[in-house]
């Protein structure tokens, strides 16, 4: 973990709303090892997308970072102003969004999307050179470069998502944040897309933060997994360890909720309850109202920085009760 391309410590993001402050991300620390794929999983509304956007300081208003550090190659992004951040977005860190239909400007041709991206960061590249580079990349992604003259709505969903990947790669960044990249794709297209992503990751030695709620995608692609619940990362481990031996009761619940073709199940396991209201989270561990292993300490103290067997898990079952 020494060679982390990105490391986040104590990051908190608050959304002031009329009903109170929503703690979308609450004291989160984790890091992305260079050249690895880290899956960030959790239910809708657990703060995983906000965390992804926060790395580029692009939280939707009125969200703001209230504490913490985001170190990209050792530089703290919290100290950067908007102009400096703009030069990081694209060439250093890029994003792939979940819905390629709405993430491409419907009135602008695809080649324009690429050209303006290059133009925004590399002033002295001529149009012909830029086009040659774009054509090469797009062909590499399996799309005929002649289609670049078309508008986003003229492509299929899978092609659009490959265009989004192309836009994320055109400036050769080392880190890509992929926010539910296959959400709008059907399973066949999704499988192709994941293969493509995996290939690209090896080819360009990319570090990918893969935000998803789909454990299957994580199992296929990720090297490490961070599980998020109610704005906090509750468990982080290597993908093999996590699937073989989940520690946190929430992770156990998540994994038992996946249908398993080899087990004869009449009913699928469901976790009782629902995620807490983030304007007024329960005291102590936010998971305790739903937890099958609840202890007396759980609604009094919040578990923090608990390490067991070299794994990070925020649960009093594994120690930290005296801290």
């Amino acid at each position, binding site marked *: 973990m020494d060679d982390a391309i990105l490391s986040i410590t104590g990051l908190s993001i608050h959304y002031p709303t009329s009903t109170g402050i929503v703690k979308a991300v609450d004291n989160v620390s984790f890091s992305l090892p260079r050249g690895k794929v880290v899956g960030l999983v959790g239910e809708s509304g657990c703060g995983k997308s906000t965390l992804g956007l926060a790395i580029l300081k692009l939280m939707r208003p009125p969200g703001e970072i209230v504490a913490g550090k985001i170190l990209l190659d050792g530089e703290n992004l919290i100290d950067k102003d908007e102009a400096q951040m703009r030069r990081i977005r694209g060439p250093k860190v890029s994003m792939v969004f979940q819905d390629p239909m709405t993430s491409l400007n*419907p009135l602008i041709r695809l080649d324009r999307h690429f050209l303006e991206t290059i133009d925004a960061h590399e002033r002295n590249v001529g149009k012909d050179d830029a086009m040659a580079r774009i054509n090469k990349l797009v062909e590499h992604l399996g799309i005929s470069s002649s289609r670049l003259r078309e508008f986003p709505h003229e492509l299929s969903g899978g092609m659009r998502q490959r265009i989004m990947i192309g836009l994320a790669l055109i400036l050769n960044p080392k880190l890509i944040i992929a926010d539910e990249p296959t959400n709008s794709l059907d399973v066949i297209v999704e499988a192709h897309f994941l293969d493509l992503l995996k290939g690209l990751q090896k080819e360009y030695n990319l570090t990918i933060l893969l935000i998803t709620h789909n454990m299957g995608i994580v199992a296929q692609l990720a090297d490490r997994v961070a599980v998020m619940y109610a704005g906090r990362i509750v468990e982080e481990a290597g993908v093999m360890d996590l699937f073989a031996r989940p520690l946190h009761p929430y992770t156990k619940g998540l994994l038992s909720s996946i249908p398993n073709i080899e087990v004869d199940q009449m009913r699928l396991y469901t976790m009782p309850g629902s995620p807490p209201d983030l304007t007024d989270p329960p005291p102590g561990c936010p998971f305790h109202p739903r937890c099958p292993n609840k202890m007396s300490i759980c609604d009094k103290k919040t578990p923090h920085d608990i390490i067991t067997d070299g794994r990070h898990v925020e649960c009093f079952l594994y120690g930290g009760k005296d801290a």
Partner: protein
Amino acid sequence: MRALLSYILTRILLTIPMIFILLTLVFFIIRVMPGDPVKSMLGAHAPKETMDEVRHQLGLDKPIIDFSTNNQFVDYMSAFFHGDLGQSLWYRVPVTEKIAQYFPATLELSFFALLFAVVFGVATGAFAAHKRKSAADYSIRLFGITSYSIPVFWLGLMLQMIFGVAFDWFPIAGRIGARVSPQVITGLYVVDGIITLNFEQVASALWHLVLPSTALGLILCGIFIRLTRANMLGVLKQDYVLAANARGIPKRRVVYKHALKNAFVPILTMMGLEFAYLMSGAVLTETTFSWPGMGSFLVESVNYRDFPALQGTIIFIALLVMGISLLVDILYAIIDPRVRY
């Protein structure tokens, strides 16, 4: 490109039935209106024989509509397709001639007023959305609602008093200086001046346009400010704006290229509506600035009970409105590649 052409062609073909419906409606509405054109022509005390005679000359003794080919409706339709909108009862000249005389004045004034309103309104509205909740935003919004609610004749009078009378910078009435005798080709004095290379005429015509088009433009720009700002705020929340920011596209480009282009479609609709409305003549502005346009002509025609002039003018304006909405639809398709039949 082929799709665009077939869209335009379809859209043009669709206007043909619309023209028929329009002509029919105007014909019947004019005829159910109270008042007798012959009486208003000759006066209420004219002898009955004279009235009958005139009625016969005008073809008004024929049935309005029946199953023969000799009725008023057929006469009216046939005249229309021969380019004849009837004779003005008051001026005793073809209505088309009067329209040709008054319409260019209205077109000239409307063009400059709308140009001012759109350029100024869209620019400030987009800026307000860009700098949302800043002092500039609040001032622009206040300005928008104020300019929208000021009565145009009052604004016109104020402009006349300040810039026409007190400072004496601009003329306060008419289309052209008394010493310039305009050469008329299209009737648009600015265009005619350019065609004939008569730059004294161009300067004088533009000079006369300043105050009336500013007054009208200021009133209209409030709508454009508010519409642009509201649409821009909506578009700025879209995913592709976030995605463009995430690619490090400079904010100015994101706002004024990505967002404004998408926010422009409803603005275009409003431009079409406003322009169509202006074509019927901005009566109050034209009256304040003694501007000899369609508004003045319409008011005159109503006052003189000049039914043929009224009917002809209404048809002319309605056709224009149709033409403008056709144009707006075509522009939609050019801006937004998703608009197709």
